[in-house]
């Protein structure tokens, strides 16, 4: 990755230098701040936001508090982390519900931000919470947009209301009447993508807003957006007084600097993140988790939450113990592979494991079919082999390869990967990843 590595790796690089050196001088803080500035800019945080951020962090870091502290590096991490959280909003915001149903949610944004896809995800999310949502097609410009919404609606079992290319405001009003008559409690309005400087289309959105007074007006923003995120968010906010932001396509290798910028300039909360293309891939936005992800401390909370819904708690505890004791066998490795599948994309998970942000693993390196091969290989081993992989020498390797329909190279690769994982766990156990309780707490 090198040049293209994310903000988290870059900041980690800065901090690893700092933590390694003990006490900090003002000059060192200045240098670190310069790197933070560059890292944030390369992560597409807006220029002005970066300036303010760096100023604030420097102000706090250069104070006595840091210099007198025993571990100045950790202090700086703490300050940067706190400021990142403060910048992105300090808690997770839920969707507002109208006292008089239906609750109306309007999505708006630039072309290609992912509004239509997000409609499906939101609907799925609401259904899971026991709501009865309905979708409304108000994108009357893009060819086949209504069809797309219909297909999306069908895939999440949600009715789609449409009136062809009628005026969106009129369609929206009719949709709400229809929803009332059908007992839908939430109405999600999909609007056409538009440039924030297109006055005619912005007028149209204002008309929809006036006609149906939505409970939520959510600006949908591509997480890969650059400096322009601020301009876009500001114009939509000025003209529509949005209630929140949805960040889409956060599963790219982008660190989503746009999230920081938008929150900083609009003051509106980021409510959800879209990760992945399947309709279930929607997550609430937790500023603290995002910040710790940015810092490369790993999004442990999200990982645990995700794992709990997919894997039984007991299994988790067992695994955690093995993690801690580093008594990890190939059998456990197999269980891990299977659980990971349940939990979602492996690469999503890897980013959440503390320290893994540092590892040279990019998503494109992870090949899900390889995982399948690995599983086949482990299944072709004897119990003894699984527990004591050291005994697997060349003849066993050949037998395992033949048995699993793979090659010896595949077997070697798996064993190597296993060894690396075990090594990683040993290091975690020894505290270099600051995981777990007691002494090995997070540095903040």
């Amino acid at each position: 990755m090198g040049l293209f590595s994310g903000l988290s790796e870059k900041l980690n690089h800065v901090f690893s230098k700092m933590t390694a050196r003990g006490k900090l001088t003002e000059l060192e803080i200045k240098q670190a701040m310069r790197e933070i500035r560059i890292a944030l800019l390369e992560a597409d945080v807006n220029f002005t936001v970066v300036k303010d951020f760096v100023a604030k962090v420097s102000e706090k870091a250069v104070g006595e508090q840091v210099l007198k502290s025993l571990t100045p590096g950790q202090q700086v991490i703490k300050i940067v982390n706190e400021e990142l959280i403060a910048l992105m909003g300090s808690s997770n915001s839920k969707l507002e519900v109208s006292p008089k149903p239906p609750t109306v949610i309007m999505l708006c944004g630039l072309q290609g931000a992912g509004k239509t896809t997000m409609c499906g995800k939101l609907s799925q999310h609401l259904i899971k919470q026991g709501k009865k949502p309905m979708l409304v097609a108000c994108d009357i410009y893009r060819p086949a947009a209504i069809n797309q919404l219909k297909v999306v609606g069908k895939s999440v079992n949600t009715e789609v209301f449409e009136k062809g290319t009628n005026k969106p405001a009129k369609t929206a009003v009719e949709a709400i009447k229809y929803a009332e008559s059908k007992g839908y409690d939430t109405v999600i309005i999909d609007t056409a993508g538009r440039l924030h400087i297109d006055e005619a289309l912005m007028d149209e959105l204002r008309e929809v807003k006036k006609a149906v007074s939505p409970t939520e007006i959510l600006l949908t923003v591509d997480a890969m957006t650059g400096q322009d995120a601020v301009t876009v968010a500001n114009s939509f906010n000025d003209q529509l007084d949005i209630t929140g932001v949805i960040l889409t396509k956060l599963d790219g290798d982008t660190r989503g600097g746009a999230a920081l910028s938008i929150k900083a300039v609009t003051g509106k909360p980021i409510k959800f993140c879209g990760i992945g293309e399947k309709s279930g891939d929607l997550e609430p936005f937790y500023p603290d988790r995002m910040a710790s992800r940015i810092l490369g401390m790993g999004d442990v909370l999200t990982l645990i939450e995700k794992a709990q819904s997919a894997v039984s708690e007991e299994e988790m505890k067992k695994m955690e113990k093995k993690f801690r004791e580093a008594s990890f066998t190939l059998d456990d490795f197999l269980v891990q592979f299977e659980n990971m599948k349940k939990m979602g994309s492996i690469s999503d998970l890897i980013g959440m494991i503390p320290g893994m942000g540092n590892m040279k693993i990019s998503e494109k390196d992870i090949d899900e079919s390889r995982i399948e091969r690995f599983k086949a290989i482990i299944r072709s081993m004897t119990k003894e082999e699984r527990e004591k992989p050291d005994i697997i020498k060349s003849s066993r390797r050949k037998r395992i390869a033949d048995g699993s329909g793979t090659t010896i190279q595949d077997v070697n690769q798996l064993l190597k990967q296993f060894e690396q994982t075990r090594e990683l766990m040993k290091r975690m156990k020894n505290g270099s990843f600051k995981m777990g309780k007691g002494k090995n707490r997070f540095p903040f």
Partner: protein
Amino acid sequence: MGLFSKIKEGLKKTKDVIAYKLNKLFTGGALDDDFYDELEYVLLSSDVGAATTERILEELRDVVDEKLIRTREKVKDELKQLLIDSLDENPLPEYEYPLIIMVSGVNGVGKTTAMGKLAKKFKKQGKNVLLVAADTFRAAAADQLTVWSERAGVRIVKQGEGADPGSVVFDALSSAKSKGNDVILIDTAGRLHNKKNLMDELGKISRIVDREMPDALYLNYIVLDATTGQNAISQVDVFNEAVDIDGIILTKLDGTAKGGVVFAISNELEVPVVYVGVGEEIDDLEDFDSKSFVDAIIE
């Protein structure tokens, strides 16, 4: 040149250097750090990126010192020239027919729209154009491309949703061979560049094209959204690994985004920008012009 004029020439140069240095010191600091900060701001806010901005400004300072430039206006002109030159370094592909262009890119950058516009562009040049709907994943993508094919007045080959893109392309190429199409434009599904199997699929389509029409000129264009920040670099990098990227179509330049990330791409990955999308109408696709692109960044 006589000895005397040589000395005169030499002295003039020295005089210039002294004048330049004095100017630097005393003229109210026309080219002071604030001025460079201003330029830095302009570049950064256009998504040029921190590292590239730093590199460009260093180069600029060198040129300014070397050419003894004293006014802000002239420095700006030099900066523009630097930027233009860096974009023009990578030659555009030269078209030969039959021509096959496959476009790829991440989700929502405007591939299908760009395809429709490109079809119209070739059609206007009197080419016999075929559109290929190889985005079989996104809901209603083929419908969307069909509307564009009607607008452009060109033929389209498509299959049902969920069909294998490779088989759509195979069908399209057989059909193109029998109908004598000389421009074949393949629209693919948007894919985030970190999904390995989807990237592999692009390679597969490429192999089908190479096998079925080995004598045609086959180009791969990536569509980039001008609103995208530094992530665009890694997009081009990764797509370039899957299929050799020959050019960039930069879309959505009609907004307020400047698309400055292409300087880094052009410098590091040596891929030229070929077209720019400047609106939603079918004729809103223009040949890339480095000068007007740079003018939009530095007024």
